[in-house]
């Protein structure tokens, strides 16, 4: 948690300014270099998401296996089946793309894109390191909360347009779950925001230079993490896609590439919620060592939280729908509000 001087951001801006100037000298309109920069940034983010998601899928399979005293994927690529996710991705790309006859074609095609776009948009404000942030919005955390609620829209679109009772049931469950858990999630995030006095992700990380917010906000962290697991539809809150009850939930009719995009979005969302937890509670990129290591500290903490998510998956059984609602409204929400009030009073008094 050593004090860390923010990287000179001016360096990046100088580069960008020179890029714009070069195009201006040729008489090309300002929009062209802007578009080029946007495309490059988006490509980097999509590349990062794909690699992270593929690694996560492989990692989840390995951890699942080892918790059950198995090996998991061992064949593809040689060393412990490291290429398994790549092989699966290629297989999904080559599969037949089926759209059911009764489905609402336009919505059916649009749904995975909406889900993935909302997962992608959250990466804009994740602070990977000092200066390593796409846009340091002054309302960063509010933006993430707003964007992540969009996922449920895509899920409802997928469930409704599939024209399948399991898909519709899964989508309805997902909507109920997301709405119930969004409230304690936001309220639990208000504690660190009060302590930091800012909604900007960078400012929140810098406010934790001396003390990570997990220490004064342990209750908020536990509430947030529980809600985050529920938000991403992971076990023990995976009732929207409960295999034993409703086959696969909202994506039961999807196949091939569209299914892969849902899968990718799910793992991208997992990464996002863990990255937010790292930023808000675990001091973001802060850590010992030189500043070059900052992104690795950030990724290390995030992947540790992801490991806890996988670990929880194999420790706990799926809850019932009524238990889920009970936990959300009667347990997590009062705790989050109590934490908010205590934090507010403490900040006011001290």
């Amino acid at each position: 948690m050593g004090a860390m001087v923010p990287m000179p951001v001016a360096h990046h801006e100088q580069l960008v300014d020179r890029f714009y100037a070069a195009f201006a000298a040729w008489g090309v309109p300002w929009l062209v270099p802007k578009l080029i920069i946007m495309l490059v940034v988006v490509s980097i983010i999509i590349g990062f998401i794909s690699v992270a998601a593929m690694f996560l899928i492989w990692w989840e399979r390995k951890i699942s296996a080892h918790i059950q005293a198995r090996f998991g994927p061992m064949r593809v690529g040689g060393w412990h089946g490291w290429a398994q996710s790549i092989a699966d991705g290629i297989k999904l790309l080559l599969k037949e793309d089926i759209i059911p006859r009764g489905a609402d074609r336009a919505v059916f095609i649009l749904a995975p894109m909406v889900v993935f776009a909302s997962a992608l948009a959250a990466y804009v404000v994740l602070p990977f390191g000092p200066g390593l942030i796409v846009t340091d919005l002054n309302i960063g955390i509010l933006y993430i909360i707003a964007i992540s609620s969009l996922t449920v829209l895509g899920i409802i679109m997928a469930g409704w347009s599939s024209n399948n009772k399991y898909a519709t049931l899964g989508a309805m469950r997902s909507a109920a779950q997301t709405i119930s858990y969004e409230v304690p999630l936001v309220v639990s995030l208000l504690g660190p925001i009060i302590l930091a006095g800012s909604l900007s992700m960078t400012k929140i990380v810098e406010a934790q230079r001396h003390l990570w917010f997990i220490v004064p906000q342990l209750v908020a962290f536990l509430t947030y993490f529980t809600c985050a697991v529920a938000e991403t539809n992971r076990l023990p809150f995976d009732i929207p896609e409960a295999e034993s009850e409703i086959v696969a939930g909202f994506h039961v009719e999807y196949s091939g590439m569209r299914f892969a995009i849902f899968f990718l979005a799910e793992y991208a969302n997992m990464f996002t919620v863990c990255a937010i937890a790292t930023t808000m509670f675990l001091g973001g990129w802060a850590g010992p060592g030189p500043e070059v290591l900052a992104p690795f500290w950030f990724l290390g903490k995030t992947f540790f939280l992801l490991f806890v998510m996988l670990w929880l998956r194999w420790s706990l059984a799926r809850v019932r729908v009524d238990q889920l609602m009970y936990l959300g409204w009667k347990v997590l929400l009062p705790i989050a509000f109590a934490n908010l009030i205590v934090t507010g009073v403490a900040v006011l008094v001290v």
Partner: protein
Amino acid sequence: MVRYLSDIWFGFISILSSMAITLRYLFTPAITVQYPEEKREMPLRAMNKHYLTVDLDTGKLKCTACDLCAVICPTKCIHIVGQGKGKVRHPVEFDIDHNLCMYCNLCVEVCPFDAITMWTGNYEFGGFSRTDLFIDIRELTAPGFVPSPMTPRLPAAKAAKAPARK
């Protein structure tokens, strides 16, 4: 209210204790046997593919083509053609159809000379067609010592000169 708080507390504790259990399992070594690379040791008397045993002193098949195994076989999967009379009688054809064989071990039990055995530990004889499971005398001839009811293990004196098993 007390009930509510104690429920939350014990729920929290039970989550932590279940996580402790899964963490312990995460670090226990996997029990999977990676089949083509690793193989489980077969029990000595496991019944697998048949072999016709060879007398290690003379190097000839012990079989005398007496037809007892072919007669007792419940599925009639053994076909033998013998040649010669008396002490020189030996099989020229010995076919076993493993499509039919049900591994009852009766042919081994009935054999007066321990000339046929199933204690070979060779269970890898799957084929791509039915004719692949039709095994003739060349394939049945033991490549070396195979355990039999009388000699389940090779005596140390003969072990030195016995050819290695495939």
